[in-house]
Structure formats: C-alpha cells, structure tokens
C-alpha cells in the first residue's frame, strides 16, 4: 500500500538553522559563524551568565522545588517582574493595575499568543511588518491567519530609517490592522527610529487606530541599560495606548533554549485586562497548555533578588559593551584597509545585528569562499566577531566588495 504521505514534498530549509548546520559541519580552520543571533564571548564560545549558573545550582540542590504545572498564564512572579522590567515600576498602567503578563515560550511564543488573540478574538485581519523584518514574523502571522503587508523601513541608499515611506504606507492601512514595531535593535537592520521619529510613528498609529505590537527581544542587550532600551515601549504606554509587548529573555539572560518569554498586555482598565487574559488562557490551552518552568523561575529569582539583579545588570553591560567594541573595531579595520564605501552604519546601528549592505551575491561569496557564514540579506551577527577573527572578516568583506565594484551599490 502506498504511504499516506507519499505526496509530501521536502520543505525548504529555514535559512538561519541551515547556516548554523553548515557552519558546524564545515572543517575549515578559519570558519566564522555570523549567522545566528546568539551571544558569543571573545573566545567565540557561548556565555552562560554567572548569575544564571548560581541560580541553577541553587535550584538543583533545593529539595523543596518541584516540577509541578505552572498556571496556564505562567509563573506569577515572572510575569509581574517581566512587565515591570519593560514598563518601569512607576508606569501609570502598572500602578493602575491594568497590565497583565502572559508567560510564553520565548519571544516567538509571546508573538504567537498575541497573534492568535488578535486574529481569533479581535478579528484583526492585516498585519504590517517592516521591510525587512525578522523572517519568522511573516510565517508566524500568516499561520495565525493574517494577511501580511509590508511597510517601507530600511533605506538602503542612506542606511537609515525611511520614515516618510513608513508613515505613508501605514496611513494606507485598512481598518483592523496590527503593526509590529521593533522596540529596540531592529532585526535585521540594527537601525532604530529616533525619539522624534517614534513620536511621529505613534501619531500615525493613533490616527489610523493601528493595533501596536512591540517586539522587544533585546532590552538591556542593546545599550547595556535596561531603561534606555525600554524608551519606546514606555513612551507608547505613557501616551495611553492599549498595546502588547512581546518580550524575549533569550538574549539578555542567555536562556535561548529554555524558551522564556512574556506577553505584556496593556489595557485601559483592569476589567478589560481580566477579560483579555481569560481569553488568552483559553487560546494557550490548545497550543501548549501551560508554559515551561525552569527558565522562568531563573528569571523571576534574579529579578526579585537585589544582589542577583545587580549582578545581572553588570552582565548585560558586559555583553552590550563587547558588541559595541566589535562594531568600533570592524569599522576601524574596514577604514584602515581602505575598503570601498562608507561603513559608518556599522557603528550607527545597534544591537546584535548589522545590515552590512552586502548584496546576495557578495554574501554568498563570504560563505562559499571565506567560510564566513552570514545571511544572504547581508545581515551579520556582531556577536560572532572577536579579536581572533576580526582581521579575517574585514579582509573578506574588502575582497568581495572590491571584486564586485561593477555592481550598482551606491553606498558600498
């Protein structure tokens, strides 16, 4: 009997995971992984934060800790700690008890909770994402039943935010539209709106009644300062928006594989908050039922313990500073070897990623010839750079750019 699945086709590989797999399999001694967004120390290795190790060791030897089910909406201490972390303890919405957190499986899971609620309960139809954006935004919202629309964002000529284009596109949004905004450290471009530009974006969102979903994966990780990185989210709250913030603790706690996320729900009043929460719980029940305990417990412990919290803030600074240093260094080296083009965007952009401006062909050359693994969009993860590979990477960039000088690249 023929298999019931004989007609299933091979699905296309998911680019970033494919890059990592190819990198791992590559025997080349000078290979460099600039694809996946995960922090690496200067030794090129993953860094488990010392405060995380401390708390995990405590948990393993604590005889009173068990593995019981968390509530559907997750660990209460984690949820309140996460919401306070992004909005600030004195935020009016927090003080007035109209904020709720829903623990979710990573930032992805938080986006999923938002998408399902907005589609199924609120009947939103369209979602606006920036061009470019994190590729999983589109798949996630499409799978959740949305029609995805793109708004202009990245100006490749000037390597900056095309605010006019963005606002023009958002003004054409039909009713029942959601807009995903990257709270800080835009992925993949690393280019964020200025405070003044955020104000204009908020004006249009208000005008068109767009539902704002902030994707906040890099609070603290970007500048080293939790409050500075939270500016855009706090601004929207203080302007009185009802909106969501999808938070990830993958990067700022280094807890990638424990899937620690929170959907922060900001409502006009406490009553709405309860209703929204109850519906989100029903939605979650048929997808994963209740979230995973381990990572959330680590984060809750740290956020609620002043000495551990202080230690964690230092660790975030360590990570952010190393990345800032790599940006400076790469910028300097490219200038020093006379790589054609203006490379200032490397230091103007912020966060994990840089949109180098390399085109698809150049990016492929980086991978094939130099075993420097990066995305074909030209995105590199700054965390993958270190003092040992900086020269090699700078030289490689210089080579692929110089060789393709005939191509129409106005800035590079």
């Amino acid at each position, binding site marked *: 009997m023929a298999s019931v*699945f004989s007609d299933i086709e091979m699905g296309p590989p998911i680019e970033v995971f494919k890059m990592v797999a190819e990198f791992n399999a590559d025997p080349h001694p000078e290979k460099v992984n600039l694809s996946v967004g995960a922090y690496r120390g200067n030794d090129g290795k993953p860094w488990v934060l010392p405060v995380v190790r401390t708390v995990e060791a405590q948990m393993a030897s604590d005889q009173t800790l*068990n*593995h019981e089910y968390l509530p559907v909406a997750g660990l209460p201490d984690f949820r309140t700690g996460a919401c306070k972390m992004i909005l600030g303890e004195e935020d009016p919405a927090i003080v007035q008890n109209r904020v709720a957190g829903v623990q979710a499986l990573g930032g992805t899971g938080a986006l999923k909770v938002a998408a399902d609620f907005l589609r199924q309960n609120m009947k939103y139809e369209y979602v606006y994402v920036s061009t470019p954006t994190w590729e999983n935004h589109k798949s996630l919202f499409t799978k959740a039943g949305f029609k995805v629309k793109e708004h202009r964002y990245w100006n490749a000529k000037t390597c900056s935010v095309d605010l006019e284009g963005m606002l023009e596109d958002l003004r054409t949004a039909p009713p029942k539209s959601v807009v995903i905004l990257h709270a800080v450290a835009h992925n993949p471009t690393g280019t964020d709106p200025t405070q003044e530009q955020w104000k204009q974006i908020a004006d249009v969102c*208000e005008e068109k009644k767009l539902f704002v979903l902030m994707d906040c994966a890099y609070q603290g990780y970007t500048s080293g300062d939790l409050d500075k990185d939270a500016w855009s989210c706090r601004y929207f709250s203080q302007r*009185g928006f009802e909106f969501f913030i999808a938070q990830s603790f993958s990067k700022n706690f280094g807890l990638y*594989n424990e899937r620690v996320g929170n959907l922060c729900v900001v409502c006009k009043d406490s009553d709405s908050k309860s209703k929204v929460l109850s519906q989100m719980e029903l939605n979650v029940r048929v997808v994963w039922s209740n979230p995973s305990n381990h990572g959330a417990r680590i984060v809750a412990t740290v956020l609620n313990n002043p000495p551990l919290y202080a230690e964690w803030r230092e660790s975030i600074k360590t990570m952010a500073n190393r990345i800032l240093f790599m940006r400076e260094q790469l910028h300097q080296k490219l200038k020093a070897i006379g790589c054609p083009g203006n490379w200032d965007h490397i230091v103007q952009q912020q966060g994990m990623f840089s949109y180098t401006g390399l085109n698809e062909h150049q990016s492929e050359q980086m991978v094939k010839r130099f075993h420097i693994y990066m995305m074909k969009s030209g995105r590199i993860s700054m965390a993958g750079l270190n003092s040992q590979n900086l020269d090699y990477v700078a030289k490689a960039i210089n080579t692929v750019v110089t060789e393709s000088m005939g191509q129409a690249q106005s800035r590079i």
Partner: protein
Amino acid sequence: MSAVKNVGSRVLFAATGRNYILPAVYSRCSSVWADVPLGPPDAILGITEAFKKDKNPKRINLGVGAYRDDAGKPFILESVKKAERQMIEEGLDHEYAPISGFPAFTEASAKLALGDNSPAVAGGLNATVQGISGTGSLRIGGDFLKRFYTKSHEIYFPTPTWGNHTPIFKDAGLTIKPYRYYDPKTCGFDFNGALEDISKIPEGSIILLHACAHNPTGVDPQPEQWKEISKVVKKRKLYPFFDVAYQGFGSGCIDKDAFGLRHFIADGHTLCLAQSYAKNMGLYGERVGAFTIVCSDKKEQERVMSQLKILIRPIYSNPPIHGAHIVAKVLNQPDLRSIWLKEVKQMADRIITMRTRLRDGLKKEGSSHNWQHITDQIGMFCFTGLKPPQVERLTNEFSVYLTKDGRISVAAWLFSEKTRGIVIASSSSSVCRSRRA
C-alpha cells in the same frame, strides 16, 4: 524592583511639557477590548482555581491529574534529581536547540514507546520531534495531519476522552467524531460497541487511541481486545493516532503499557503518536513530550521531518530544553534508568493500593453500590460513575472538587485518604444512596 527606575516618563515631561500621565485619545472612546467577553474557566484547570478559592478547611482537590505522595506532596523522583545534579556538574549551556529537539532525547523517546529493538527506530523511520508535553505534541500532530493527511480531516475519539482533545484538534481544523468506548452500565470497556462503531468509520479516517490508562475512565482494552481492534482498524484503512501520556504509570511496567501501540506496529500499521513525560517522570511544568510519525522509508522520514520543522518554527521556534535533558539522561543512562523504572512502578503500585482502599472504604461506609470498577480501572483516574448533579453536590456540600464527568484523581486521593478518606467515602456513598432513593 526599586532598582528599576522609570526614566522615561521624566524625560517625556521634560521634553514636551505635556502631562502624559493623563490617558490620551483612547480613553475618550471605548476600550479596544470592549467586545471581549470573559472566558469560561477551563473544565479541568478551572476546578483547581475554584478549589483554591474555597475557604472550607476540609476541602479536597481530586481534579487535576498530578501525582501526590502519602504526605500529599508532589513526588520528586530521585532519578530526576540525580539527572539535574549531573547537568549542573556538566555546566551545560543554554544555546538554541534544533527545532526538532536534540537527538539524544528524541531517539530515546521513540525507543521508549516503540521498543528498544524496534525495527522502525533501527531503520531511522521515525520522524520524531520534541513537543511541548502531551498537549503540544498532540497539537503538532493535529496541525500536521490537517496540512498533509489528504485522505480525511475527520478524527474519531473514544467516548469519553480527555477534555482537552476536542479543543486541540478542533483548533487544528479537524472534525471530531465519536466511537463508543466506555460502558456506563458496567463501568468498563464497551468492546463490542467499540468494534461495531470502528467498523463503520469511513475509510481513511484518523482514529485516536489512548495507549494505556485511558483518561478519564481508566478503562483499557485487554491484549486480546487490542488485537481485534487492530484488525478492524486495518480493514477500514484508518490512520491511528496514539496518545501515550501514561507509559509506565498504568501497570507499572513500561512494556506492558505499550502493548497496544507495539502490536499495531507489528501488525503493519503506519501510525503516529504523542508522548508526555509529565506524569511518568513528574516533569509536569517542564513541558517535555514528543511527537512521532512512523514513516515508510528513510526518504519519507526526511521529508516529513522538514515539514514538521516548518510547522513548529512559527509557533515557538524551538523547544524548552531543561526537561528534555533530564529525560535523555534518565532514559539513556542505565543507572538512572533502573532507578526510574523502580520509581514508576512505585507510583503505579501506590495508586493500585489506594484504589483498593477507596473501594473498601466505600463498602465500609455502607454503600451498597457496586464499586468494583474502582479497582478494575487503571492509571491515574477513576471514573466514579457519578453524574453531574451528584458531582455538584459533592463539591458544594462537601468541598470535594472533581470534574463534572465524575472523574477523580486517585493519585490526589492518596493524601486525603489518610485524614479524610472516610469523609469522601461517606459523602460519595450518601450521594449514591440519594441517587438510589
């Protein structure tokens, strides 16, 4: 948290002179959530919420299926604790896992269900992914079948089944249909009714089967009955979907509990299965499970795996790893595995003991009802046979919390038996007496 300062609003004040603490445009019109109704409490988890609100000091929660020891405490397995200590010593990192989970876990999981010497696993025919415990694994399965199983979008459930099966598969887009399973007259398996119904299921439909310790009834087919079921399922060319939530927890023996599933494989069915490690390893909140499709050949396995990953990525990207590391260690290390097998037997044996005590306790209290089914049934739950009005009375008058289908968690009763077993017994039997009157 006083360390976290709200710099933002002060900056705003300074920059603009406007008082943003006053709500803006949105408060002048109604809230964007104005039409969102309050959702009803979950049929199972809602019971615990109601229990927590009850002020009666004699309250008892027999709702959720979570194992309790004699002191009424969650039971933390020694094999699990040992594995966790090893993980600390090894200094494992927290890098992203592959979307499908890591092989040490997925392979061990497939072998646990299908057998150590399973030819399917040996041949690499199992497309196994880590799932978010039982729920998440069932959901991935439902999504996958909706997308790729073109023969039918109807899934047949035993009547009754776990309360969350229907919402999960409905949300995945499948149509739910029933087949007879539980006989309320005998409080046992309606073998003839099941076979009759299954033999009429349209060809190619999907059929859900509980591998062991059926939830909520605790009623399982005997080995000979499994063989007959397999024949009919084969005849109707149905696609079996096994829910394996209690392997080891039913009889105390992991192989015995997998009999039905393994017989189906030996009988030549291609099938899929969802596993949970919530109960048999006490890892409830760590959300460890697996979904497996048994494929016809290696190429198909590769194609199926590629599609499973595409399905998972836009939900939660990759799975939580802490619990999976624990399971991989426990299953793969002989010393930990042998401790675990003893602990699983221990848990199962205690439940069997408590079933006997509950049945005897009810008799002692003077109940003339036949409570034989309490010891005939197997696994975490007992289908008492109480009807919704009786359940309501048990809850409202005696603060005994159970789901309205009359299901009680025997494991949770372990504790109450020591101090309040008589109360339950007498209240149940008075409820039954009033039913007879």
